[in-house]
C-alpha cells in the first residue's frame, strides 16, 4: 500500500551529493515530492529530508541503497506519525488589495504573519503542514496572489536517540584496520 514517507539522510557535505542521493530514487522510478538539505546538529554532517509516496518495501530498499553511498552516514525512514514536520510558505499580494475586503481576518485566522509591506506589495508568511499553507493560498486567492512559494518538508523524529549515538554505533560496527 502506498503511503507518505519521510526519508532522512545524513551525509558529508561533498559536491554532487544531492545528485547521488536523488539517483537512488530515479533508478526505481520514484518521484520525490519534496527535498530539503541543510547542516544538521553535527557540524559538517548534512541532513536531507525527502518526502515521497510509495510502499514500505520500496522505501526500505531505497534506504539500504542510500546507505551504500560512500558519503552517506545513515538513512532513516519514517511515517508521518513518527516525525514532527513543518513547511514554510510565502505569499506575495498587492498592497492595494488590502482595501478589497478583510485580508486582516484571513491573516488572523491562519495565524500567518506579514513579513514586509511595500507600497506595491506585501509578503505574508505561514508555517504549517501542506494542507494548512495550501488553505491560506486558497483563501488569499480572491485578493490576487502574485507569487506563492513553499519549502519542502523539514522534520525531526519523535524518538529520543540522537544522531551522534548512531554515529558512534556505526563506527563500532566496523572492524578497525
Amino acid at each position: 500500500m502506498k503511503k507518505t514517507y519521510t526519508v532522512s539522510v545524513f551525509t558529508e557535505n561533498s559536491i554532487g551529493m544531492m545528485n547521488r542521493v536523488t539517483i537512488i530514487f530515479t533508478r526505481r522510478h520514484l518521484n520525490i515530492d519534496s527535498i530539503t538539505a541543510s547542516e544538521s546538529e553535527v557540524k559538517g554532517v548534512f541532513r536531507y529530508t525527502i518526502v515521497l509516496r510509495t510502499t514500505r518495501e520500496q522505501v526500505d530498499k531505497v534506504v539500504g541503497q542510500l546507505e551504500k553511498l560512500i558519503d552517506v552516514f545513515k538513512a532513516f525512514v519514517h511515517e508521518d506519525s513518527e516525525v514532527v514536520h513543518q513547511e514554510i510558505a510565502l505569499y506575495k499580494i498587492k498592497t492595494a488589495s488590502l482595501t478589497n475586503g478583510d485580508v486582516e481576518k484571513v491573516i488572523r485566522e491562519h495565524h500567518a504573519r506579514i513579513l514586509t509591506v511595500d507600497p506595491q506589495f506585501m509578503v505574508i508568511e505561514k508555517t504549517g503542514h501542506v494542507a494548512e499553507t495550501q488553505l491560506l493560498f486558497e483563501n488569499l486567492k480572491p485578493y490576487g496572489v502574485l507569487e506563492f512559494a513553499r519549502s519542502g518538508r523539514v522534520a525531526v523524529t519523535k524518538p529520543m536517540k540522537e544522531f551522534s549515538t548512531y554515529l558512534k554505533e556505526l563506527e563500532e560496527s566496523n572492524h578497525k584496520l
Partner: protein
Amino acid sequence: MNLTKLTGAQAVVESLLVEQVDTIFGYPGGAIMPIYDALYDYESTVNHILVRHEQGAIHAAQGYARTSGKTGVVFATSGPGATNLITGLADAMIDSTPLVCITGQVASHLLGTDAFQETDVVGISMPITKWNCQVTKAEDIPEAIAKAFYIAQSGRPGPVLIDITKDAQFSETDFDYKKCTNIRSYYPRPKLNKSVVEEAAKLINEAKKPYLLIGQGIMLSNAEEELLEFAEKSGIPVASTLLGLGAFPNNHPQYVGFLGMHGDYAPNIKTNECDVLVAIGMRFDDRVTGDVSRYANQAKVVHIDIDAAELNKIIKADVAVHSDAKEALRILIDLVDAKQHTSWLQEFRDAKKIEVETLQESAKEDHSEELKMDEVVKMLSELTNGEAIVVTDVGQHQIMTARYYQYNKTKSNVTSGGLGTMGFALPAAIGAKFGAPDKPVVAIIGDGGFQMTLQELGTIMQSDVNLKVIILNNRFLGMVRQWQQMFFEKRYSFTNMVSPDFVALSQAYSIEASKVEARKDLKNGLLKMLNHNGSYLLEVMVAKEENVFPMMTTGASVSEVRLN
C-alpha cells in the same frame, strides 16, 4: 619525512606506485597528456598497455582484476575518452570488480563552458561507480587516489573514477602519500554478530536437505579454502552462480552444477525442494531466481553477504548474516555438525541423469554433421584439465562454456555476468593474462561479440601477450535467434550475421590463426592452438541453429526449467 615537490601528473604516477600498481591499461589524449608525459619516465617500473579503444582498456582492467585479485587501473582522456569507459564502469559496478579509473579533464577555468572534449564524466558515471570525484588542485591528488584504492578494494568491491583537470596535473605540490584506511561515513568491514551465525548453524544442523549456493563473493573474500572445509564438513551439496564458477572445484563430488536461466537442471529444481538454503556471496539475480514469488518458499533461507543492501533485497532471509564470507565461514565451520547427505546428494545425481539423457536424446535426433558448441568446450576442458583461465563474452557460447568447462581453479572464470556486455571477452582476456601471466588464458567468443571489440587484436599484437582466442562462429546472434525461434515464431529479425575472414583478419595483425570446420579436425586444431608459442586465434564453425538447454523461460519458476 621530507616532502618532495612534484607536479600533479607525477603525483598521480607516484601514488599508483605506492599502491603497488604494476600495470595500467589506457589511451592518451589532450587532457591527460601531462600524466602520460610523467609516465614516460616510469617505463621500466610500470607496464602501460596501449589499447585500441578506451572500452578495451576498462574491460582489460576488469580481466586483470578478476584474475589477479588486485585493483585494475585505467587511464583515459576527457570527453570521448571518458565516455568510452561507461560500459566498462557499469559492468564492473554490477559484477563488483575493483577498478581505479583516472580521466583527464579540461582545465578548471573551462569547466562547465562546453570546452573542447569536455564532458561531465563525474555526473555521467555517478550511478555506475562505487565512488567518483573531480580533482582541480594538485595537492588533492594523493588523497583522492588513496581514497579511490581504499574504496575500490574494500567491502563489496567496485569501480571508482577520478577526474583530474589538466591544470591540476601541471601545477606543483608537496608529495606526501598516506594510504587511506578509514572514511568516517563508510563501514566496509562489518563486525559479525556471532549470535546470528549461531542461528544459521542451528538451521543448517537441523536441516534434512540443506543446499548451498555460492557466488563471486567467495573469491572476492578469498574464502575458497573455508568454503571447501565448510562444505566437506557439513556435507551440503554446492551449486554456483555464473560468476561463482571456480570458487568451488567443479570436479568435487559435492558440486552439483550451475544455477539459473540456462543453468543445470538439478541445481534449479532442487532449489524448490531443499529445506534450508544457504546463500553465500551471491545476490539472487533474476537470472538465478526466475519467478521470485515461487522461489524456495518451502525453505528457510540463510543469506551471508558483505553488502547490507543485498540482504532481503530480493529474497527474504530467515537469517541474514551481514559479513565477509571468509569470516562467517570460519565461524560456521566450528559450529556445524559433521554430516553426510548421501541420499540428498543422490537426488541431484538422479536429476542430472535425466538432464544428460534428455540432451543426448535431442542430440540423436539431430542428424547434421555440424560441430556443436558444447563439443568444443568439453574438448578444451579436457585438454586443459579444467585449469585454464577461461574468458567468455555474452551469449550461447558463454552459457555453453559455463555449463561444460570444468572450472577447477579459483579466479579462472572471467565473464560479463550482471551487465551482459558483448565485446567484453577479447579485451578482458588481454587483462586476464597480465593479471595471471603464468596461467594459460583462453577466450571463447561468439562471432557477434568478437566484432564489437575486435580492434583489440592490435593490442595483442603490440603488447606481445600470449593468449588463445576461440571464435565459435554460428553465423548468427545465437542467443537472440534462439529466443526468436522459441518466442517470436522464428522471425529472425536482424540476427543473421555476415562476418569477415577471421583467420585472414587475425593474420593481418600478425596473430597466427586457423579454422576448424569438421569434427575430425577439432582436437588437432585445439592442440595446435594450445601448443603454439604466442597468441593464436582458432575459428570453429559450429551449427547455425543450436539451442541452449536447459532453459528457464521468462517468468518461469526454477521448478519449471525446460530440458528441450
